[in-house]
């Protein structure tokens, strides 16, 4: 028995930079079954109403990653997003191009920055020429070694994470979640011989701009969990190279800070991250805050049972020794 249809209202972003001075939203109303994918609806609009609607798609099966766009402000693959739940929650379906990439036309964006950042992490095995693989031999990995990067190969490069990332939006130099997740894949690959160089290269301007807001993990249609892989990279970078950057100094400084009293000494953390010169730079802001909140300069009390906390550090924290 055919499914009952619903009247679905679409508002679709339309913009042709060559001809339009500003974007507009075109409205279309279609009778569709609730399980209809947004992509199918858009293709029907293009076939039956407006052949100029421009969009990118290919497989229609959530494999190719071409049809990522914003559906009601969420990064989604249009082919696997059904209209029913969207209508229930929002009453209409607003379709917009992905964010953080320039619009070429309508729902098609310029993916150049996304791919540029991907290329920059050297997404291929780097082998040491002094130890070439013996001709005709394989370079085997254990199942445990493969397990360390079992999520990242699921990535279909749809750029939903790049579109959702607030660090990409605020800092075009930030590589974005996908490039960093791919980097992780090579840093834990036992066959790769450039682990240290990769970690060194990614730290300034790259790794430590991640806000660990998990918006990428939420947006990813393939559960690659980029934010968690970026966290892993940060811990590996500190273990291998110590606290060399403001970001790693902040993380390590925070850890050391808590060891002393069990609670955070706020002013001391600023000094640990920024150094004395950095503190001078923030003096004006510090005074502004101090006037309302004089506690920022006070060290907190030591918690009861601080010895327990310190013994936990003794048992589990050796990274600073390894790094020095």
């Amino acid at each position, binding site marked *: 028995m055919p499914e009952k249809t619903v009247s679905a209202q679409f508002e679709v972003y339309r913009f042709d930079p060559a001809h339009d001075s500003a974007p507009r939203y075109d409205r279309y109303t279609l009778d569709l079954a609730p399980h209809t994918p947004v992509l199918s609806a858009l293709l029907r609009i293009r076939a039956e109403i407006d052949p100029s609607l421009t969009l990118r798609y290919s497989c229609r099966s959530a494999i190719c990653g071409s049809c990522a766009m914003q559906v009601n402000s969420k990064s989604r693959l249009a082919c696997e997003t059904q209209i029913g739940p969207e209508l229930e929650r929002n009453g209409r379906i607003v379709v917009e191009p992905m964010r953080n990439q320039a619009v070429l036309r309508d729902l098609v964006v310029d993916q150049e920055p996304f791919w540029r950042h991907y290329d920059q992490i050297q997404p291929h095995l780097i082998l040491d020429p002094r130890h070439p693989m013996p001709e005709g031999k394989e370079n085997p990995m254990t199942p445990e070694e493969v397990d360390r990067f079992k999520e990242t190969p699921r990535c279909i490069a749809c750029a939903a994470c790049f579109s959702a990332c607030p*660090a990409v939006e605020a800092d075009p130099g930030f590589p974005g979640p996908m490039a960093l997740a791919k980097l992780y894949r090579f840093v834990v690959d036992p066959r790769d011989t450039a682990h240290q160089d990769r970690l060194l290269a990614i730290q300034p301007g790259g790794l430590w701009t991640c806000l660990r807001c998990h918006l990428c993990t939420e947006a990813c249609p393939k559960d690659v969990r980029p934010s968690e892989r970026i*966290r892993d990279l940060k811990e590996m970078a500190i273990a291998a190279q110590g606290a060399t950057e403001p970001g790693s100094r902040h993380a390590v400084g925070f850890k050391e800070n808590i060891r002393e009293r069990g609670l955070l000494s706020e002013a001391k953390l600023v000094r640990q991250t920024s150094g004395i010169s950095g503190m001078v730079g923030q003096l004006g802001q510090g005074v502004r805050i101090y006037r309302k909140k004089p506690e920022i300069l006070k060290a907190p009390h030591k918690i009861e049972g601080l010895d327990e906390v310190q013994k936990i550090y003794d048992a589990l924290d050796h990274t600073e020794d390894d790094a020095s």
Partner: protein
Amino acid sequence: MKLAYYPGCVAQESGKELDMATRWVCRALEIELVEFPNFSCCGSGFIDEANEVLNVALNARNLAIAERAGLDLLTICSTCQGMLSLANLRMKDPKVRTRVEGALKPLGIEYRGTTKVKHLLQVLVEDVGLPAIQNKVRRPLQGLKVGAFYGCHLLRPADELNWESAEEPHSFEDLLTVLGATAVDYRGRVMCCGFPIQFVKPDVASRIAGRQIDDARTHGADAMATPCPLCHISLDAYQNQAAKAVGHPLDMPILHLPQVVGLAFGATPEELGLPRHLVPTESAVAKIGSRVPA
């Protein structure tokens, strides 16, 4: 209701007004806050970056303290909520658990994993319930348009925290509505405040904070409200920097979650620590007037 009160670092320090407002609201709702002077910092996501297992162990110790007292744990910070909840989850991984127990057992600390971690927002909406909250409203926040700002770690990763939809949450808006306020719908409400990189990449952090404040403002918000004191630092204490980053003045009062509740329950701005904010809150308070029955 009786809960182990986990105020976190900031509410005991520069965000003391959050602690004041929490105590005021919990008194009004007869929620007994049991204090534990041996709780340590949750690690705020930073210790997690430096040493994940250490971070889990510190929080397993915190959870064991509440567990020994047979209490669920109340957080008032999105980040504390995330870190403590995820520690419960990571402890289900046998490899992590073995290492953590190796550090805790010699100290006589037993972690069993029975303590639930609940943010104040969850306790208000789910345990106290919206009808009971509505009964306590003495000064409805009529005329006040509030942009809820959730804070990342209360929502994400949603499949691990197992609470609300991270993309379309509604608890905070539901609460604001029963308090009489108008909840403003804007994309920024589930976005990041920039705080984690405030001291690492201040310019980028300020652009991110400014972006969300602007978003709330253009959607008509008179004030924003947050369940996270770290978001509060970014949005309030550093709002002047955010204004510089977006290139125009910002004047957005930023309220802590229990301050909004307290205002509706009839508390004075002083009782809720509002004068401690960097961005004056008078414009928001003026919108609701002082219609408290004598």
